[in-house]
């Protein structure tokens, strides 16, 4: 076993997921099996091989720094579950101690 329930719970936390007890069990078994399969990659000698991050060569794309039309603030925030004036509204991030 490479993957334990603790690992799944920790990684879920990093990915901002809260798992039910039976989900932790299920994912632990399944991910262990998948990673076991993925370990086949270690049979290959890749010493000195450069990794590919994109299949086609990418160049930095530049454009003139000109003002162009945008969709505007109202359109940008219209889909927000909660908003106030022109802002996204979220729960408190920093608690102030009284």
């Amino acid at each position, binding site marked *: 076993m490479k993957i334990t329930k603790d690992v799944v719970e920790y990684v879920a936390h990093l990915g901002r997921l809260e798992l039910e007890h039976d989900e932790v069990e299920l994912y632990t078994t399944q991910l262990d099996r998948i990673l076991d399969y993925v370990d086949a990659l270690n049979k290959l000698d890749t010493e000195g091989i450069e990794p*590919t*991050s994109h299949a086609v060569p990418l160049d930095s794309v530049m454009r003139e720094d000109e003002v162009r039309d945008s969709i505007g603030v109202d359109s940008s925030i219209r889909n927000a579950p909660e908003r106030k004036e022109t802002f996204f509204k979220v729960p408190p991030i920093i608690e102030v101690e009284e």
Partner: protein
Amino acid sequence: MERVLDMTIQEVRELLRKKEISSVELTGFYLERIKKYDGSLLTYLRVTEEEALEMARDADRRIGQGEDGPLLGIPLGIKDIFCTKGIETTCASRILEGFVPPYDATVIKKLKDRSFVHLGRLNMDEFAMGSSTENSAFQTTKNPWDLSRIPGGSSGGSASAVAAGLCAAALGTDTGGSIRQPASLCGAVGMKPTYGRVSRYGLIAFASSLDQVGPLTRSVSDCAVVMNAIAGYDPMDSTSIPQPVPDYTELLGRDIKGMKIGIPREYFIEGMDEDVKRAVRESLAVFEHQGASLVDISLPHTEYAVATYYVICTAEASSNLARYDGVKYGLRIDGKDIIDMYKKTRSKGFGKEVKRRIILGTYVLSSGYYDAYYRKAGKVRTLMRRDFDEAFKACDIIVTAVSPTTAFKTGEKIDDPLTMYLSDIFTIPMNLAGLPAMSVPCGFDGSGLPIGLQIIGRPLDEGRIMQAGYVIERERAVKKIPDTLR
């Protein structure tokens, strides 16, 4: 009107041009078919009837004024992954329910500029993660040839709707086979273009280094027509290729004498259906008969493709899907603080497969495992690209099966993710290498289920792929729409 089902888009355009039919009539015909058949097929998440009829009326006005164009007034279905201004776009996920994009994806804009008709939003695996469309949060699409079977995925709604004649053609996306595999399983033509050939701007991202947009159609000619419309450089997508787009219809019907066709020995694997092998061999015989020559080639790293893919695509997905946090759009579930709100929102909003991939992707990117998994997979990806570079020194196109089996039963693989992943073994390598590849129907198995042939080309060689696919379509003359849907 029934006859349009057996016509190419070019032929239907001729009827529209001569005013033998109107776009409103054509659109009405497809809307009627959707009402009649989609209750059992479940290909559409939402039919945009009002928008469709309005767009059709506009197209008829334009035709009346003498306007012309290859997609003018043609009704298309859209995979629910393309941002479309003013039309709910969900990616088949609860987390995006109610999301109405404020802008059009570049491909949607291109179709609108050509006055197409937007019939509706087609079902898919949630965030395009899956091979059966069973991962949709809303419904499981059926295969039009056998309602007890899956249509493939993730563009299963698109493939099923095209094959069932519920739209003239559809847009899909392909990250590891999501256009080609459902096209193969439903008996449609499906093209994954070269990475960068079609803009991804406004496409809801799954794995950005692999995702590519392409058409699903009932003929190779229609594939060329849709490709002509959507391909090309887009300043809004820095990965799009700044190369001119050829007219893809031009090579159709040209002979393939002297074309060298590579047959990779690694693509006839154990567990493959005998009927699939037979259909591929018969198609190779067609190519030979038409003057092409067959060349044995080797793609030695094929067996590592699935492992490489599931490291890279989950890593990219875990990063791309971080944006669904209950703040900017879609679902929000309140929590005791902001982290709790994120967790509750994401846990409720994402389905099983999406969570599985976020966890796997987060794991392979996490401190201490990055080199062992993500970096290693990137290196193997380099080896796989080199395989293709080497192979294309000896041949012009490569031909294989699309899927080792025909459509499987709904529910058959859903509890076994690894087996599901392995069903994409023949389509994944082209995404890793960024190569164009097409599925073209080439026969049926003993139970009457469609079989697709995969034709793979060098970068930007979509034209040659379609030229070869056109030969298979003409010589094999595979039936397109099931009799039960006539």
